[in-house]
């Protein structure tokens, strides 16, 4: 005990020293990955190994427990890292802590971690075979190798968790507990509806950690957690279904998972894509429609005859821009019908040496009233578009043209105003809300701010919005494209279904988006189908297996294998049926065993009955001056009672009656031996005391513990009417004196035969007169019981004898039997009944 404690203490100390040294070797704040500085870490490896070896608690765990523990260790370490990163505010310390934890996942330190893991798992522990050890090595190794490959990593985690998530406790916990857990998980998934899943999968909200290994461990962690909870949910759902107590609900769920859900998913995908395409089409036409219309205006102006005429006229070069201004004013009026607030600028750049001419529409703000060149990043194909310029946002169309004499630059500005948005909504029948043009009510709002450098930032609040499409804006100064915001579309079903005439003329932007959406939704649907098919398959497999088990069980029972037990995991009606089946086989088995036992007993009793019938006298003796009659009825087929007559010399009759405690073949055999012993003894000496002495010793030898034999032996001198008798624990014979009309009990108190060896029994004697009765009997008469448990008893028997003493022995016997029958009233006979009645004539 003390040695174990010592080992553990040393083990913990070594690991602590190694871990501290490991952290100390890391240079906090260094830009390089920890591995570069962590070569020294390897030197600490032996310490770790020895420390881990001394902590051998792991040995008690099985392989799956170790795997689960390993994954849990990994997850908890990273969770701890995130927590510490939140809590530790000092950058220096934070960096140190981070590096400490993160170095766990560094390739070189990963090696250390693998060694630790192997150490923890104590794979050299004998119970596991070489194959399983190899498998475990492979899994752990792949785990670390795949840290850099997200997809593979996830796949691996799924494999590990599928192995680990068998979760036997889900089977052992109660059904209400499973339901509670399932409801918690359902709550989790519902909560995801209010918390975009993309934050979970790609958690920008989490503190950023600079990692050598791809920088994606946060995502990996969250993805792992996500997959873990998903699998747990599936497992709990399966467990719930498997242990469901209603076959009907199971069948319904099976159909739900195998048919309804996949079909629903497919229909959902089709509808979703159809909706998306319809809506996207509207957006597309909206987006493109605005641009096209503006582009048409630009094209009309730049190719217009009026502008060409102006270019051709010589006075244009005279330096006045009045004609251009007039043209711009005229065009502004035309365009404003489509785009309220529009202003435009027409710039002519003559050959070198001459001033530029700028034509401005009347609404042109002062800061735009000067000539300018196109920025170098500009390409014709990005116009028209949204541009941020001079602190404002515009939908802008830029057209340029180069003739032999002049370069023409046309810029049409459509300010992003409330009026413009309303006009777009009116024209395209959509709800478009861009702040700052707030509308009352429940529409989505979009906050667009522009910072000092001209960059645009966006914040979005979208009560009730369910479709969002991006709008981009280009910074005019540098050409950088940022997100302007998004368009919230609230199409009605009518719009969706009437927008089915897609414009396929612009496949690039439109089809790309819809294709991506289709792929994503199809992939999700496929996952749902696979999972639901798997779950549904498990359910129906469970039902099939239950039915199969029942069929097998029935066959086995039919073949006579009553030891076969039908195993059933579920708790449904099949389980009840299987339980009933198992109970039935148990009962059948017991019944058959009872039948066999009964047959055996019956056979034994028949054999014993034959023995007894050969022991008891075939008939009563016919004696001059005496009338003798006997009666015997066993309680079972073979009783323990024995009676006999011995014809002795000198006109004497020996009368014997006895009772062996117990019944059946053993009692019958003892009687047989007693008879043999008696007959042998009588040949030597038939004296009462000699016979009882010999019989007692014989029974003492033969009978085992707690088996006794009561025995009454008497000699009737027929001539002298004198009875010499002695009783060994047997009921005293009755002597009815006719002359005195009195009943005497011929008492002789002694233990039954077989209690003590070499017991001497005293003899007694009695004299008879004509008309007297001598009655020997066994305890069956006295112990005859009525339905209430009351015994017939001595008093009743004595009273019966006295009352019927005048009768002939045969009649007396009949009256005794009749009264016993009346007394018992159908209560089964508990003991043998034997009676000998002798009447002196």
């Amino acid at each position: 005990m003390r040695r174990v404690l010592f080992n553990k203490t040393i083990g913990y100390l070594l690991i602590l020293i190694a871990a501290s040294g490991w952290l100390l070797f890391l240079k906090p704040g260094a830009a390089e990955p920890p591995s570069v500085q962590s070569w020294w870490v390897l030197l600490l490896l032996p310490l770790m190994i020895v420390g881990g070896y001394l902590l051998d608690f792991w040995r008690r765990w099985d392989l799956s427990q170790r795997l689960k523990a390993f994954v849990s260790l990994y997850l908890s370490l990273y969770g701890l890292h995130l927590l510490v990163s939140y809590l530790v505010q000092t950058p220096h310390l934070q960096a140190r802590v981070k590096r400490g934890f993160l170095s766990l996942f560094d390739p070189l330190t990963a090696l250390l971690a693998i060694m630790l893991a192997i150490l923890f798992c104590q794979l050299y522990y004998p119970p596991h075979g070489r194959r399983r050890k190899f498998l475990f090595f492979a899994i752990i190794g792949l785990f670390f190798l795949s840290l850099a490959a997200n997809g593979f990593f996830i796949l691996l985690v799924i494999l590990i968790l599928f192995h680990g998530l068998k979760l036997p406790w889900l089977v052992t916990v109660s059904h209400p507990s499973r339901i509670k857990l399932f409801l918690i998980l359902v709550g989790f998934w519902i909560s995801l509806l209010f918390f975009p899943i993309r934050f979970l999968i790609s958690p920008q909200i989490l503190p950023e950690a600079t990692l050598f290994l791809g920088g994606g461990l946060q995502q990996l962690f969250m993805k792992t957690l996500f997959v873990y909870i998903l699998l747990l949910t599936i497992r709990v759902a399966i467990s719930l279904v498997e242990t469901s107590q209603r076959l009907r609900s199971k069948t319904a769920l099976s159909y739900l998972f195998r048919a309804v859900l996949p079909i629903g998913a497919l229909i959902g995908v089709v509808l979703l894509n159809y909706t998306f395409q319809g809506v996207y089409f509207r957006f597309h036409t909206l987006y493109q429609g605005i641009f096209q219309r503006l582009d048409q205006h630009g094209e009309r102006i730049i190719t217009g005859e009026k502008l060409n005429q102006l270019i051709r006229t010589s006075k244009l070069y005279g330096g006045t821009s009045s004609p251009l201004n007039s043209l711009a004013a005229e065009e502004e009026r035309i365009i404003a019908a489509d785009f309220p607030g529009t202003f435009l600028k027409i710039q002519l750049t003559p050959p070198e040496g001459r001033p530029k001419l700028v034509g401005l529409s009347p609404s042109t703000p002062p800061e735009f009233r000067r000539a300018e060149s196109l920025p170098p990043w500009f390409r014709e194909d990005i116009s028209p578009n949204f541009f941020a310029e001079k602190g404002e946002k515009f939908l802008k169309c830029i057209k340029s043209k180069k003739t032999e004499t002049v370069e023409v630059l046309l810029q049409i500005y459509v300010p992003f105003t409330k009026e413009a948005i309303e006009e777009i909504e009116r024209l395209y029948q959509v709800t478009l809300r861009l702040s700052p043009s707030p509308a009352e009510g429940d529409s989505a709002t979009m906050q667009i701010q522009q910072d000092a450098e001209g960059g645009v930032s966006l914040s979005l609040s979208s009560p009730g919005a369910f479709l969002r499409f991006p709008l981009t804006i280009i910074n005019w100064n540098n050409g950088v494209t940022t997100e302007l915001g998004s368009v919230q579309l609230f199409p009605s079903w009518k719009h969706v279904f009437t927008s089915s005439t897609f414009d396929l003329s612009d496949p690039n932007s439109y089809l790309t988006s819809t294709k991506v959406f289709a792929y994503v939704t199809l992939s999700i649907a496929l996952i749902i189908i696979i999972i639901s098919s798997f779950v549904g398959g498990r359910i129906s497999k469970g039902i099939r297996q239950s039915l199969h088990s029942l069929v097998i069980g029935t066959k086995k029972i039919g073949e006579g294998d009553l030891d076969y037990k039908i195993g059933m995991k579920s708790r449904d009606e099949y389980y009840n049926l299987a339980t009933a089946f198992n109970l039935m086989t148990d009962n059948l088995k017991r019944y058959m065993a009872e039948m066999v036992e009964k047959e055996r007993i019956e056979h034994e009793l028949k054999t014993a009955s034959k023995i007894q019938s050969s022991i008891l006298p075939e008939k009563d003796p016919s004696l001059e001056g005496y009338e003798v009659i006997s009666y015997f009825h066993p309680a079972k087929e073979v009783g323990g009672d024995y009676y006999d007559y011995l014809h002795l010399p000198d006109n004497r009759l020996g009368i014997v009656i006895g009772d062996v405690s117990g019944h059946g073949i053993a009692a019958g055999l003892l009687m047989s031996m007693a008879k043999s012993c008696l007959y042998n003894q009588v040949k030597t000496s038939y004296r009462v005391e000699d016979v009882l002495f010999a019989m007692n010793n014989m029974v003492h030898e033969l009978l085992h513990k707690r088996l006794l034999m009561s025995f009454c032996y008497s000699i009737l001198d027929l001539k002298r009417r004198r009875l010499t008798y002695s009783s060994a624990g047997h009921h005293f014979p009755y002597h009815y004196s006719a002359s005195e009309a009195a009943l005497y009990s011929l008492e002789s108190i002694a233990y039954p035969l077989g209690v003590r060896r070499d017991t001497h029994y005293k003899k007694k004697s009695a004299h008879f007169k004509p008309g007297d009765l001598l009655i020997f009997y066994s305890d069956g008469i006295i112990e005859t019981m009525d339905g209430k448990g009351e015994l017939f008893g001595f008093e009743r028997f004595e009273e019966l004898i006295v009352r019927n003493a005048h009768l002939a022995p045969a009649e007396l016997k009949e009256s005794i039997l009749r009264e016993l029958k009346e007394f018992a009233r159908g209560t089964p006979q508990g003991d043998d009944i034997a009676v000998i009645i002798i009447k002196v004539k």
Partner: protein
Amino acid sequence: MLEQELTLTARKGDKYAVIATEGYINNPGGEKIARRCYQLMDEGYKHFILNFSKSKVINSIGISILIEIIEKVLELKGSLSFCGLTNTIAKTFRIMGLTQYTKIFPTEEEAITALS
């Protein structure tokens, strides 16, 4: 009623122990009494009073077990008394020779008084 399983309570006095039974004294019933008696003998008791006032029926094997107990008590030079016997049981005990070595009292109190 016949199959009523025997229950017993043992009350220990200074030098004696009273075992009161209820139910049929057959093989298992007799076994119970014997086991309890032997336990008490191991504890040093030699004098026993068996109160059968709630046992109305006894069969031959039950009696043979009682004889066995009597023999053990006699070996220890102790005593065994019966009380609360029905007339039939009392007479049966007499017939079977049990009264040669035991005493029968109508009540438990009388049996205790006789011991002290």
